[in-house]
């Protein structure tokens, strides 16, 4: 029996990404931080760009090839990447899966 997959809402995507981030943060030994749309990857989470690579892999494993973080980031300047907030990523993923 096939079921039609509903495109996820922003809230659902945020929850999923927060879960993945918590795993990444656990691995690098940081305390639990509340992850919201406003959370900054580098300032609030102290995430290094290498962790974004891990996150990219987790996103692709979860949602498939339509979610390509490398593509998403490719057009950005270094400043933009440093200032990236979770909300931007959530909006990108939601749009890709719509």
């Amino acid at each position, binding site marked *: 029996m096939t079921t039609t997959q509903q495109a996820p809402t922003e809230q659902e995507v945020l929850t999923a990404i927060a879960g993945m981030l918590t795993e990444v943060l656990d691995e690098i030994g940081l305390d639990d931080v509340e992850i919201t749309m406003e959370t900054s990857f*580098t300032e609030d989470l102290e995430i*290094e*760009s*290498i962790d974004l690579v891990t996150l*990219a892999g987790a996103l692709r494993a979860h949602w498939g090839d339509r979610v*390509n973080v*490398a593509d998403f980031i*490719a057009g950005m300047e270094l400043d933009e990447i440093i200032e990236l907030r979770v909300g931007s990523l959530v909006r990108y993923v939601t749009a890709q899966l719509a």
Partner: protein
Amino acid sequence: MSFLEANGVRCHVQRLGPPEGTPVRGTVLLIHGMLTDSLASYYFTLGPTLAAAGHDVIMYDLRGHGRSARPASGYQLEHFLDDAEALLDGLGVDGPVHLLGNSFGATLAFGLALRRPAQVASLVCLESMPATATWVTQIDDVLQRSLAGLPNEEAITLIEASHGAHTARMARRAARMLSTTSLATELPQTEPLSAEDLRGVRCPVLAVYGSESAMVEQLDWLEQALPDCRSVVLQGQEHSVLIEATETLRLLALDWLDELEAVPVA
């Protein structure tokens, strides 16, 4: 995350390939620089571009960097070269490989070209030079100064105030690496390459420098020392060409590989 045990060290690898149905044109190994660098600097710049253009792109974290293991010792150039060879073998890459190295990554690439002259098809050197006596002196100087100036938490707070949180984080990361490994003492023990050794780098080399960087001084010497080397100088750029001139580098790399992989029209 993908890991491979290479030369006894857990190695973090990312591999990007061309879109489904596109034939693979060639294999490219991207090698990052030292201390605060990782494969992320390629993952978000050249990696996807080269893959989209039809290449099998391999990016990895050097020992001690990114998410690869950080042994306390084993940081002479030879160790990094052993890792790279083990990585290629472990991934089953036995055909020709194009190398692209950034800073220390390019120094490593030259070493790999000497170890595997039949396999290394070409080499792009970003802001760097092979491991000659000059290089050993320079790297020793850089590492000793870094070691001597290891920032403590107080200094990092000052760095944060004057240069921002990002720079402070990088400083902390570099300090952690230097204080927990023997990199600073071991790497300068690397046996330097002679002029004769360098003539063994027979593959085509493209050397890219920023006009404002200290490394650009090496340009003329390098073109003379290698059998097949051409250079490009990026005006107004300093050492971090990969990040600051990404789009230019994308085009340079694509054109370079196109030229090398050009198939004669029947």
